[in-house]
């Protein structure tokens, strides 16, 4: 009973702190760039504001456009229920594994892309096309990395992977870090950050992720942005789970969970800092340079895998 409660808490935490992470990254970026930047809590204010605003919906669009934000949020939420964050087990771990997780994100992307086309705006369609393009190039690398990560546990079941990895202790092989790098690249691609995409721009010709949601406003926009930040947290958490799976509460008792929470916060912060460093130190790539980056990720993960086989 208690663990169910805690696992529910896990889900709630993810949903709630997601905007915070976004704000944190923005802030750190600003500081690193020597600006004051917005408040850390700014995203919350934004969301609240959007929620209360009336929405303008394109005449050209259909019910797909209206439904999309809810589907996306729903899918992201479902994904959130699968990922252990500060406990080894997650609420709905029995429902699915890594594959389901990936495909839930894919589902969200699917609808975002369609909504982008639905408005009839060529920016939306362009963005949709690029979104699908980048993601389809990221997918193979992602899966190989997951395979590499899941290999020691011999299962694609997240909780068991985490548990197994936690037992395993600190990995020494350099191979392991190849995998980490590969996965990091993928996380950046999936979250739509520099150098693959720039979340803060609305410069028409360069947007990828922002394109499809260009037409959104009001509640819908709020939901979309919220789920975007949730997805980001989830991916960070996943990175943490697969690469540094320590400090997660093995059992559902208060102290352990608190410890887990603390560790989780630290992890998020660390990743956030790293990400913002990357963002301020590199420039966005041309679209057709992206395949090389992702290819590199694939190669890295394959190396990692081969090495693991040979050891």
């Amino acid at each position, binding site marked *: 009973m208690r663990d169910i409660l805690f696992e529910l808490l896990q889900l709630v935490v993810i949903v709630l702190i997601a905007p915070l992470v976004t704000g944190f990254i923005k802030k750190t970026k600003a500081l690193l760039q020597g600006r004051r930047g917005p408040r850390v809590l700014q995203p919350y204010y934004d969301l*609240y504001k*959007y*929620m*209360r*605003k009336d*929405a*303008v*919906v394109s005449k050209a669009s*259909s*019910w*797909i456009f209206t439904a999309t934000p*809810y589907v996306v*949020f*729903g*899918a992201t*939420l*479902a994904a959130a*229920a699968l990922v252990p964050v500060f406990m080894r087990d997650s609420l*709905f771990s*029995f*429902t699915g*594994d890594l*594959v*389901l997780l990936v*495909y*839930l994100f894919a*589902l969200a992307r*699917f609808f975002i*892309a369609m909504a982008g*086309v*639905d408005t*009839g*705006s060529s*920016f939306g*369609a362009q963005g*949709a*096309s690029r979104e*699908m*393009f980048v*993601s*389809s*190039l*990221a*997918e193979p690398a992602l*899966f*190989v990395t997951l*395979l590499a990560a*899941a290999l020691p546990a011999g*299962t*694609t*079941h997240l909780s068991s992977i985490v548990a197994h990895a936690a037992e395993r202790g600190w990995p020494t092989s350099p191979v392991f870090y190849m995998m980490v790098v590969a996965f990091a690249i993928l996380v950046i691609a999936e979250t739509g950050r520099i150098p693959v995409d720039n979340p803060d721009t609305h410069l028409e010709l360069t947007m990828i992720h922002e394109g499809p949601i*260009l037409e959104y406003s009001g*509640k819908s926009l*709020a*939901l979309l942005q919220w789920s975007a930040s949730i997805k980001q947290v989830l991916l960070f958490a996943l990175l943490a789970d697969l690469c540094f799976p320590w400090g997660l509460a093995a059992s559902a008792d208060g102290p352990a969970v608190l410890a887990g929470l603390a560790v989780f916060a630290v992890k998020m912060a660390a990743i956030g800092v790293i990400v913002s460093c990357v963002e301020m130190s590199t420039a966005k790539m041309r*679209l057709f340079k992206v395949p090389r980056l992702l290819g590199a990720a694939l190669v890295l993960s*394959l190396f990692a*895998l*081969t090495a693991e086989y*040979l050891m």
Partner: protein
Amino acid sequence: MFSGHSAVGRRLAHGCSALAGAALAASGIGGLSGGTLTVAHIRGALPFTDILLRVTEFSAFFLLVIGIVGLAATIYAAGYVKEYEGRKSVPLLQAGMLLFIAAMAGVVMAGNVFTFLLAWEVMSVVSYFLVMYEHERPGTKRAGFVYAVMTHIGTVFLTIAFFILRHYSGSFEFARMEQASLPASAQSLVFVLALIGFGTKAGLVPLHIWLPRAHPAAPSHISALMSGVMLKTAVYGFLLFTLHLLQPGPVWWGVAVLALGANTALFGVLHALGEVDKKRMLAYSSIENMGILFMGIGAALIFLAAGQKAAAAFALAAVLVHAANHALFKSLLFMGAGAVLKAAHTANMNRLGGLIRRMPWTALFMLAGALAMAAMPPLNGFVGEWRLFQSLFALGFDGPATLLRLAGALAVAALALVGALAAFLSVRLFAMTFLALPRSEEAREAREASLSMRIAMGLLAASCVAAGVLPLVFAGAVQNTLERIAGFSGASSMLEVSPLAIAGADSEIAPAAAGLLLLCGLAAAWALARAIGGKTRTVRGETWNCGEPLEPRMTYTASGFSKPIRVAFQRLLLPSRVLYVDRDPRTPYFARGFTYTGQLPALVENLLYKPAMNLLVAGARLFRGIQNGVVQSYLLYLLATLVLILVWRIWR
């Protein structure tokens, strides 16, 4: 029965054909439960020309698929054939369709070689005629011809394979062939022959050339049957050989099949993204899915060779389930494409768009199909994809050898890429047809499909969802099927899990729960939005288009949508790109208009088949010269033959 031209007669006919489909499905379900039962045994004039029909659980599974799709197709036909009334003989089409379904059923029910080849060829011939149904349309002739020839040549390989088996088993009955044991070399020979023979039917690259021609040429419900079911008979046949008639072979079988499958899948999906003709695109996507299926078979064969029965069972389960799923959603999509074709009189997606408002039902069903094709949870496509991923992961986790594991990893990468591209494809398919603004007059005038067509599509869409959230729909069938296959009785028991969950080799998921989770997510989203935001209004407005009013010609086209792929894979696909700029001589810096055409050349044909064909014809022309019309030379040939034979007789 089909002579009735009166409305009543037609109704009757449609009714009967629908009944036939239903009966087939029922027999499939029936067959799944019981053991082998012989349906018919007719003695032939000569030895080994008996006709033997029987149902095993193995064939029953395919019967079930044939039945469901057949039923849908027959219902769909009732509305769809109206398009042809007056122009063509509808009864002929209907009769052909039923014969086609019957022949496919015959293939999976055949109990000996003669019956199998008979049904197999009848299936090919009838489908050839169905492809040629609209033979006045340009390109149809060629499509049908290529189809007929390829499939016939494939059949020759099969025939020889069968005869080799006969040679060692001394019988033409499958039941007896199974006991025979062949020398390794003969085994591999038969395997290769079967791979070529069934690969031709399955459209494995480079034997696929007929598929993207023939499937679009046929009437849509026939395309649905061909893509959805006929290709599966190839899978059935290949499994019949590899699992029943042959003993487990060396590892390279599996590797070869795996590689071939991956190659085919990638080729198929990339070309599908290059197509703007909807039905051709779907045909290429069928090639992709056949590739995926053969990847699964390859994994299964590798496991079999290594004696890892359990893993093999999982892989086979994946293959069977995905085969059934593909049958469902691909036939659904073809029917949807047919509905659109009937409504807008074009399959060119660049000229469609915005149909969701004109044909909401079709759009809804197509959405289901597209989601399934993209393997999105909680639809059936995902279940199959997940199983396949699991079996490939299993190969990566504990494949028999390091290299094989690496092969597994690469296969995983390939499947992931293909899957993602398939998602891209589905978005393109649905969005470019139904969303944004109609890009042509026909599209603006489109009408919703007739009731029977909607019923058929609805049936399939519903079964897509059902098979997605309640995988036990097929799981049970797969169970029995694997039980039938020698040596799996133990292993297949591992597939058994709670009715709501499905097991892979190393993991398990509960799709139903996932579906529920999604629903909760949706509710939560709505609730949150409502709770935080309270009630707000929505106003309709123009789409932001840099201040210009939005016109259909400004919206994205299918060609543009998949451009990034063409660019990224140009080394592989060598796309042709023609940009014509219409300049005004007076103002050379401003062009009046641009016409851009980008398409993918049919590489395999241009590099492999065309040259070979030309060589053949040239050779024939040359050889034909020996009949030069001079009677004396003929006498000379006669004399020469005589002398040669005499000499031959003397010197031996």
